[in-house]
């Protein structure tokens, strides 16, 4: 017996025991290692900033300095009489904009999917175009249209009707709600339209056969069927509104309407001396609200199939013949699209060629200029911001989709014990408002051994963490549709986990991965709420640049940059579509 053989024999009982143990069996599979790696990364991304947000709110020293435990920040934040109007304002803003966006989305979805209105397909496609426009630009363009003194629409009313002053005031709660609702409409439209498309028409047909008229069918059948999707879209948009800083930064701050995000901005960045601890205490408050509503959202979505899932059922919803009213329906859809897309883009185009923003007169047409585009072309700060945003969009979206693909595969396709933990961990970033997460990240990385603070990497971490659920949703909806037989066949043929994942799952998941990637790229190109808190002047992406140029009154430059961002987003989408064979229909 050779030495080697004896060693083998001696260790045999031990090895067998190891193999018999559950941990050994678990660790012997490559998929388990993938689960552990993905789980650890997601746990770190989700929990680390959450912990530090609480830490920041419970300490008395400024960011970057060691402090003592205190509850004073919570006492100060929530015993302040001003905290209550702030909460009331946030709820009015959240419910108002979520409700109005639902109304717009339902109207548009009903006209484009359920009626025979002319040009409905075109309206359906253009309803998602606003996604390429940074929300901050939508807010800015509506300020230029509806500000009480020289808003273009107000100006037109004054001239045509001879009024003393314009009828609209964007610097009001109504203005704030209106603009946020326009920004949120595409998201509500996607959810509601998907539910409308996948509705089983046999129920409606049965009701009609039993003598119900169109209104009765809508009230008794269509609406109850859509209710979960409506509630899901409503709660999601409520959370998105409450956590957004884009519109409040442009409208609420000058209008002196205080909501959670403006208060956080005021305390953490906007004034001197700043108080990151107090801002963190407000951040915990907004996180609490978001958690409750995201929990409700998930309950509602569990009642309706995933909004981006193709159901595979071979039916088309019953189409309502509007008769002569079909042109009126097209008119309403057109009006909504004018508000969502046409007016903001036209205003940006106009402002980008004016020497300085003003209500155009006949003389204006002689003074048109391309100076703002020249500025975009010739300014290193702008080039750097574009490069930073492109880097964040391309690298961030790719990293996010890789992580989402693996996480989605584990949660949907494997029976690994503990896979539910990943789902639970992803729930945190889904609910985490951008501003609150940014505060948590600041506290988390200010003393981190790897120098991430004040670099583009901290923004990348924020994006991947915050938007991982978006990627996950896109991939999961595709994985569900890939039949298990393909994967089993690969394993039967001797391929391991990694080979199966690479050769079978990735090609099959490609449409979902690319769809998620495209959505993330457009979001990352225009992200603002979290970026504003995390960026540093050396690593400035486009969101903060646009905001600071706007604050400096350089609206022409803002418009020119905004148009270039939109163009780049369209080009990226076109390229991705070409390579993914992804069909928007």
């Amino acid at each position: 017996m050779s030495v080697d053989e004896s060693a083998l024999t001696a260790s045999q009982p031990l090895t067998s025991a190891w193999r018999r143990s559950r941990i050994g069996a678990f660790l012997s599979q490559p998929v388990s290692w993938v689960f552990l790696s993905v789980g650890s990364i997601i746990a770190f991304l989700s929990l680390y900033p959450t912990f530090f947000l609480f830490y920041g709110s419970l300490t008395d020293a400024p960011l970057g300095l060691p402090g003592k435990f205190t509850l004073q920040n919570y006492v100060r934040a929530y015993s302040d009489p001003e905290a209550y109007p702030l909460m009331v304002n946030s709820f009015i803003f959240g419910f108002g904009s979520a409700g109005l966006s639902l109304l717009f989305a339902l109207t548009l979805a009903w006209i484009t999917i359920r009626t025979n209105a002319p040009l409905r397909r075109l309206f359906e496609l253009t309803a998602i175009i606003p996604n390429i426009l940074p929300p901050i630009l939508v807010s800015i363009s509506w300020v230029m249209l509806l500000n009480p003194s020289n808003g273009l629409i107000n100006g037109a009313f004054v001239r045509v009707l001879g009024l003393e002053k314009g009828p609209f005031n964007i610097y009001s709660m109504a203005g704030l709600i209106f603009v946020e609702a326009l920004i949120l409409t595409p998201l509500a439209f996607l959810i509601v339209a998907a539910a409308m498309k996948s509705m089983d028409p046999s129920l409606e047909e049965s009701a009609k056969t039993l003598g119900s008229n169109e209104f009765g069918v809508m009230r008794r059948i269509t609406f109850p069927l859509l209710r979960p999707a409506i509630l899901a879209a409503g709660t999601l948009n409520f959370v998105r509104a409450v956590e957004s800083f884009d519109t409040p930064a442009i409208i609420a701050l000058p209008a002196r309407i205080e909501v959670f995000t403006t208060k956080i901005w005021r305390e953490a960045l906007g004034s001197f001396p700043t108080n990151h601890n107090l801002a963190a205490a407000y951040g915990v408050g907004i996180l609490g609200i978001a958690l409750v509503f995201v929990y409700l959202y998930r309950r509602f979505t569990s009642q309706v199939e995933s909004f981006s899932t193709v159901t595979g059922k071979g039916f088309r919803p019953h189409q309502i013949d509007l008769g002569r009213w079909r042109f009126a329906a097209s008119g309403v859809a057109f009006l909504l699209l004018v508000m969502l897309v046409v007016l903001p883009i036209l205003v940006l185009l106009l402002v980008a060629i004016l020497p300085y923003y003003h209500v155009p007169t006949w003389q204006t047409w002689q003074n048109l200029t391309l100076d703002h585009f020249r500025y975009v072309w010739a300014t290193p700060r702008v080039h750097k911001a574009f490069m930073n945003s492109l880097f964040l969009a391309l690298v961030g979206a790719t990293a996010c989709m890789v992580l989402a693909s693996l996480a989605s595969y584990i949660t949907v396709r494997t029976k690994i014990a503990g896979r539910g933990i990943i789902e639970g961990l992803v729930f945190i970033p889904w609910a985490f408002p951008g501003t609150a997460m940014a505060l948590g990240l600041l506290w988390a990385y200010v003393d981190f051994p790897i120098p991430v603070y004040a670099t583009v990497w901290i923004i990348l971490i924020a994006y991947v963490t915050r938007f991982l659920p978006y990627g996950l949703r896109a991939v999961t909806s595709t994985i569900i549709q890939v039949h298990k037989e393909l994967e089993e066949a690969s394993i039967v043929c001797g391929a391991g986990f990694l080979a199966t994942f690479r050769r079978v799952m990735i090609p099959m998941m490609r449409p979902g991965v690319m769809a998620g990637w495209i959505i993330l790229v457009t979001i990352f190109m225009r992200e603002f709420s979290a970026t504003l808190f995390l960026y540093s002047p050396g690593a400035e992406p486009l969101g903060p640049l646009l905001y600071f140029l706007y604050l400096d009154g350089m609206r022409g430059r803002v418009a020119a940059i905004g148009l270039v961002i939109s163009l780049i987003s369209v080009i990226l989408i076109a390229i991705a579509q070409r390579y993914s064979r992804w069909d928007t229909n």
Partner: protein
Amino acid sequence: MRSKYSFYGSLVILAIFTAVPGWGQSAKTIEAGKKEGKVVIYGSLESDTTDAIKTAFTKKTGIEAEYWRASATKVMDRALSEQRAGKPLFDIILTNDNPMQIMFKQGLFAKYESPTASDFPKDAIDPNLGPRYRNVIIGVVYNKSALSPADTPKTLEDLVNPKYRGKIVMPDPTQHTTTTQWVASLWKLMGKEKAEKYIRDLAAMKPILVESLLPAAERVATGETPIAITYVKYAYMYGKKGAPLDYSRLGKFMGDGHYLGLNSKAPHMNAGKAFIDYFLDDDSMKKMAELGEFVNRKGVYPPLPDADKIQFVEMVDLDTKGFAAKKKEYQQIFLR
């Protein structure tokens, strides 16, 4: 004949060296700065003005300059945050007196005596911060198209006339440090009792509150709001672009100094010094004056009408606690 030429030659050489004071020192600094590659500046000086200076600086020295502009408040907050985190990324800070003094007290600046600093009057040299290279004058700027000449405010007191309610824009005194100082200094112009009442009356006019002085001026230029409390120089700067702006000749204005400081932990120390040398130089000062700045050079004025007649009272300086107290006080007055 030859001695005559040598005499004139010597004069020319002498003239070159007097025109570029400390040239030898600057040349060495520039060479070292070139090796560092670039200088990073955070400041509240307007981007268009800084762009002109940056371009000339890079042309002259070969050193690239990166500039991040924000309000004085944001510049100070950003610089202090980076210092606290132990990761300062800037070389130069360029902003108002009060924030500069606060940053100086927190040990943000290195002592650097630029050879070009000697061109400034002695009374314009701060012992901590060096030369006060320009003054910023806060006044009342209005849109001539929106107000008839008879309707324009002539004094600060005019601003609280009910006819201007909702027609005034100003930076938020609870956020913008220079405006906090301006409000806190009004007693210097009108006495304590009158100033206290005036502040409440001004808040009652429900002015639109914006981020800083520049967006206030911009709103007047666009006609969005007829009247702004802002730097008077914007009447010239926006006027150049075609905006119909003018400013009220108030008699006495309120003003502040502007300084630049070198970060004591500057990542590009020599490039920073080279920038300061150029920035305080005659060439740069003239460029700034042409662009509308009140630089601290005798007889040099911006092309703003009646600029030479402007007299101003220095605003009070506040420390961190003072700002916190005023922020709280003005929140009660302006945000309610």
